[in-house]
């Protein structure tokens, strides 16, 4: 730096070199401030030079003025630059001491821990499918009258079909009518038909009860039934609806279904429906392929006696109904093998088979997406 010519004034050059060396040597902001005061403070070397300008002749001032001002500007620049450098170094040194172990675990979000029960999820899934076909959701009481659960549904008093229902009974009401826990959700159909004139399109999901308990039966379970009443709907429409439902619910492009004649007191003709599937892989069922048949629901044309009992003329109106187990189709779709586990509230089971709260079933996003 000694051979560097800064001004035409060797004295100024020497001063500047000295100050610059001081700035570079300052290794913290306090030392830098000392250098600044020594140069630019009130009694600093550069300040003194600036003051000396007043005593100079105009000629001298003409040459020395720019020289001294230039010196001051450069010193200021050097100090500012040094200051930035020192600040950055100090920040880097501080941050270097502020390290955390980013591999430490964090608490999972509550929404990742909470679960919706498979019955609730599957009920939402099937509601989405039927809502798209124009069905609304009807509900009714679990404690029913004998009339709504049996008589209106064409179960003759004392008939074996009535006995097959393993009914839970409650004491008779004030009117002497026997009360029962509904053995199916069909009384909701009765209540719907009594309350509303056709056309009717509803599904009725809900809890149902039968006094039966073993490996495959629980005293409480869930059913969903559908009901259509208008002037033209027939078994062909019923077939189409059920096929569409099974495709949408099991999320497959095609299903093969087999309709078998059967008997229910409240439908005529009555049918049971099997769905074709592949059960060759242990613990897994695939629909839309395979050689096995699995019974999944019962259905039929609403019996004329039921229509009459609900104040609907069977010569003008007609329609169909179907019913299936929500728990059962949930088990089939999601591969749960023990019905009893649905009601045991074991958090290990619920966490495994339950659904995350933000996994809403939608037709747009895929029901089980």
């Amino acid at each position, binding site marked *: 730096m000694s051979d560097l010519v800064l001004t035409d004034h060797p004295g100024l050059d020497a001063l500047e070199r000295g100050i610059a060396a001081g700035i570079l040597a300052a290794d913290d902001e306090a030392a830098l401030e000392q250098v600044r005061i020594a140069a630019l403070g009130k009694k600093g070397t550069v300040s003194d030079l600036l003051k000396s300008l007043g005593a100079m002749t105009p000629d001298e001032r003409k040459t020395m003025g720019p020289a001294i001002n230039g010196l001051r500007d450069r010193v200021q620049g050097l100090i500012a630059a040094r200051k930035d450098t020192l600040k950055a170094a100090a920040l880097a040194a501080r941050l270097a001491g502020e390290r955390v172990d980013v591999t430490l675990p964090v608490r999972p979000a509550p929404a990742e821990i909470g679960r919706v029960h498979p019955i609730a999820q599957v009920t939402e899934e099937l509601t989405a499918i039927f809502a798209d076909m124009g069905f609304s959701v009807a509900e009714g009481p679990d404690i029913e009258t004998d009339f709504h659960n049996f008589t209106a549904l064409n179960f003759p008093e004392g008939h074996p079909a009535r006995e097959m229902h393993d009914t839970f009974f409650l004491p008779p009401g004030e009117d002497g009518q026997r009360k029962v826990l509904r053995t199916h959700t069909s009384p909701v159909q009765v209540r719907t038909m009594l309350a509303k004139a056709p056309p009717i399109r509803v599904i009725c999901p809900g809890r149902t009860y039968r006094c039966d308990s073993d490996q495959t039966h629980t005293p409480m379970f869930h059913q969903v039934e559908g009901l259509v009443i208008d002037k033209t709907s027939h078994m062909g429409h019923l077939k189409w609806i059920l096929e569409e439902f099974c495709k949408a619910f099991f999320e497959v492009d095609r299903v093969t279904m087999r309709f078998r*004649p059967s008997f229910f007191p409240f439908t005529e003709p009555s049918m049971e429906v099997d769905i074709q599937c592949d059960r060759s892989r242990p613990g897994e069922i695939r629909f839309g392929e395979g050689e096995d048949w699995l019974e999944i629901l019962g259905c039929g044309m609403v019996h004329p006696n039921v229509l009459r009992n609900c104040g609907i003329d069977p010569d003008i109106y007609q329609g169909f109904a179907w019913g299936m187990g929500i728990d059962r189709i949930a088990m089939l779709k999601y591969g749960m093998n023990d019905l009893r586990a649905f009601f045991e509230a074991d958090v290990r089971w619920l966490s495994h088979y339950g659904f995350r709260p*933000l996994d809403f079933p939608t037709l747009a996003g895929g029901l089980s997406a």
Partner: protein
Amino acid sequence: MKFTYSWLQEHLEPTASFEAIVDRLSLIGLEVEGVEDKAKALAPFVVGEVLTAQKHPNADKLKVCTVSIGAGDPIQVVCGAPNARAGLKTVFAAPGTVIPATGTELKIGKIRDVESRGMLCSAREMGLSEEHEGIIELPQDAPVGVPFAQVLGLNDPVVEIAVTPNRADCLGISGIARDLAAARLGDLLAPRIAPVPGTFPSPVNVTLDFGGTPSLCPAFALRVIRGVTNGPSPDWMQEKLRAIGLRPINALVDVTNFLTFDRNRPLHVFDLKKVTGDLVVRRAKTGESLLALDGRTYALDESMCVIADDKGVESLAGIMGGEESGCDAATTDVVIESALWEPINIAQTGRRLGINSDARFRFERGVDPAWMVPGLELATHLILDLCGGAPSEIVLAGAVPDTTRTIDFPLSEVKRLSGLEASEAEIMDVLTRLGFAVSGAAPVVQVVPPSWRGDIEGKADLVEEVVRILGLARVPATEFPREGGGRRPVLTPLQLRTRKARRALAARGMVEAVTWSFLSAKAAALFGGGQPELALSNPIASDLSDMRPSLLPGLIRSAQANADRGTGDVALFEVGQVFAGDRPEDQRMAAAGLRRAAAKPAGAGRFWQGNAGAADAFDAKADALAALAACGAPTANLQVTADAPDWYHPGRSGSFRLGPNVIGTFGEIHPAILEALDATGPLVAFELILDRIPEPKAKPTKVKPPLDLSAFQPVRRDFAFVVGQEVGAADILRAAMGVDRKLIADATVFDLYQGPGIAAEKKSVAIEVVLQPRERTLTDAEIEAVAAKVVAEVAKKTGATLRA
């Protein structure tokens, strides 16, 4: 209902294969539950002849045999059976055969150094019986090399079908044959049954005596056969009965069982010598009893129908005969009964006495009334054939009811209800083949159902008959379009709320349970339930006897079960129905949740950033509020009061109120309740009644109200009040907010203090009040004026003083 293929062929000349028949049965409504074909399982077993049998060189009890199975060289087999001897025809299994009894595959092996290339079999090894004293001995004329099953007559598959309650006619094999013939799988064989003329008047008479009460027996026929020889029935009958799971008894009894299954015609036989005087069909008298053929004694009453003689009750009508008048090997004179019974009475009596007999099963579903007398005639034929004897004339009491009815049937009804296209001729043909009498001309014909189809009531039943026989596969799936109009939500507000509450609670880390709707009477009573009208008359277990008044007991029980399995920090919720009474309006939709031990919303248990403490009443409150907010409840108007039902801790619980309505409760569960439920805590919970939340008013538009933002900075002022401990923080906040509803935007509690510096019965509550000016910035004087009003108002409403 079981039948064998050969038995079916006595009523049907098949024009299709056995497999086709089995496949079709299900499709016409006779669901096949199983086909047992012993011939298939026993196919590898063939008849072999032992040519030589010599003592094993290295074992005293073994023999080395050579066996011929016809083709090929004789085969060497080592056998341990004592009866293995030269010349014996027995059963041989070749290597590779799977032995039914053990499931193991037979291999070529050496037994004590002598090679054995197969096995001679005992009945037990083939799963035929428990007999294992020796290998099977077949008749000398058994052809060597043919399948053993064929020799045994086992090549007759047994089919089991499920018969629906409306199809009593198919509880007889002849009825199944008729359906199959209608479906064009064969020709029905229905020879006429010739009446057997009686050769003497019956020595026994019968009267129906219901003494003015409704008759339980429309008609009753009997006849006596004298001089019978009642030994075992012939092999063909025994084989039939065994094949469908019945035990042959003696010829007379076997005939009645045979006709029960062959024709759906249950009959009963009495030993004439054990009958005293005439028979009377009447109601039983209370105090009478019957020792029935099942060896049990049944106490009877007036609701039941019996057949009695001068001694007393001899038979429980239509359900089971009596032991005393039953037929045995010594019987020489027999009374045969063929009768009709009131189906509902049969069902009720059978149910009350717990008797499930083949007769009850048929009479309660309904037998063919027109076949009462022909059934008796056919029984007479069979008994005369098998046992000999001389028949009396028939005695008849009552009258066979005329069930003839005519249904006007528009043939278009088939298409209207089923969508299936069938020609008029096709429809009429199906009905005719099923035994319906069809008259008149299209489009509306007159149809008379046959006497055996008591289930046919009207047009819809006829449509079912046509469609099931023509095949449901012919019904075309037909698109079902939506009804016109716009897309409207299909869920009711309550249904939507139920869903939202569920998702909100799950999003707070709680797991949804579905617990029983019923619980123990004790648990119900602890939670305000236990009303007599909510107690089940026939609970499945004593701890599942009463409809639940609350979701909490079920959740507490579940939480404890999880704790017992090792998960103590558990957060559960349920959304479901609770019952305050037995009327529909007493059923409410509730949402409840609980947190046990350290199941905090932010996470349970120990953690490096700090362990979760015990969940407290405020966690339960926050859960409840989250659900309420998700349901769209007007939470701003919600009041929280320090009163809660007595299943909560009295000091750490509260209620949510909207006006006069309590819409929920929350808090710590009372320790005494936990103890009574055999549960441990600590446990905090809440329960909301979702249908008590008022429904939002329908709005004409979906447009949200305009956003109102102030251009001026809000001002925050803090106040620390000292108040009595009984004062609610909400009262302080409400008082502060009430000072100037326009200016004061919010007030919150930021500190709560009790301890040194504050009197023992007092607490310090520090609140922050937010002032939001709208038109201009507030001056200091204005702010001070509002602050002074806040202090004065809070002091007035709560007795608070500013903390020094």
